[in-house]
């Protein structure tokens, strides 16, 4: 008799359970774009490295004079930071748009929890990478960033769509494999931050956004 009211009740229960524990307005397209930026960045870095190695043909003599003294490091850092800033800004913009559309608040308990739990492993990883550079094992920086990013995704997956978990796993696997191919960090970065982001961003877009 009151079947409609009960149906409303159930959907209200489901809605509250997911809204209070998960932030579901993450935009899939922003993942695709982040991957695209990463690939462009990796391409630029590759070209720059090529130029550098042909200019110093007799070998990487600059390396002993200190890692940060080189122009090449500065250029690579600029590329990396631009990629990160672009990806984060695009991500925030598209997510705000999606949150508005679905009537979800952008900065509420669930999004705060998501950001905090994502940043915790990520910042740990960042600090750890600085330590790696400090001790001169820069070759492990690329694997470490991939692994810690993967851990951050897995940790964050409890507070947003579950699917992020599998992307995190993919990153960890790529990161661990790359430990065995030191010196090819750029390729693994492109594979992880580029290809993985595009694949998962597209999957999420078709699964959640296309309506």
């Amino acid at each position, binding site marked *: 008799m009151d079947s409609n009211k009960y149906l409303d009740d159930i959907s209200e229960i489901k809605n509250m359970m997911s809204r*209070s524990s998960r932030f579901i307005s993450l935009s899939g397209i922003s993942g695709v774009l982040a991957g695209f930026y990463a690939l462009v960045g990796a391409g630029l870095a590759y070209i720059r490295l090529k130029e550098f190695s042909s200019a110093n043909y007799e070998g990487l003599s600059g390396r002993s004079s200190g890692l940060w003294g080189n122009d090449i490091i500065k250029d690579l850092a600029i590329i990396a930071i631009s990629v990160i800033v672009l990806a984060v800004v695009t991500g925030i913009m598209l997510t705000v748009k999606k949150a508005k559309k679905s009537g979800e608040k952008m900065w509420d308990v669930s999004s705060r929890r998501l950001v905090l739990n994502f940043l915790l492993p990520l910042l740990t990883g960042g600090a750890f990478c600085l330590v790696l550079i400090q001790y001169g094992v820069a070759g492990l920086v690329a694997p470490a960033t991939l692994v810690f990013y993967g851990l951050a995704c897995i940790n964050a997956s409890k507070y947003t769509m579950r699917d992020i978990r599998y992307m995190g796993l993919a990153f960890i696997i790529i990161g661990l494999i790359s430990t065995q191919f030191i010196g090819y960090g750029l390729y693994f970065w492109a594979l992880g931050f580029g290809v993985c982001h595009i694949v998962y961003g597209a999957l999420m877009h078709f699964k959640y956004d296309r309506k």
Partner: protein
Amino acid sequence: MSIINNINKAFDHRIRLGIMSILMVNDYADFKMLKELLGATDGNLASHTKALEKEEYILVEKQFIGRKPNTRYSATKLGKLQFKKHIDALEKLIGK
């Protein structure tokens, strides 16, 4: 008949349903979080939490964060059990 008996009058309101749903999946929630999620006024929310507290379905903890008073709510074992029964009953009623 037994299904109807499991429909719990204490949960028969959108706000109470919301409060219980939130506390089922979160260890605790404070007043502000409940208010934001449910879009209820202070007085309205307070009366519903009081009703649930009287049934001993939720636990209310008042504390201070710095100097600000903060009220934290969590679901009791009894509350979780009763709410599960309530959901099961709803589902059966829809299924008919």
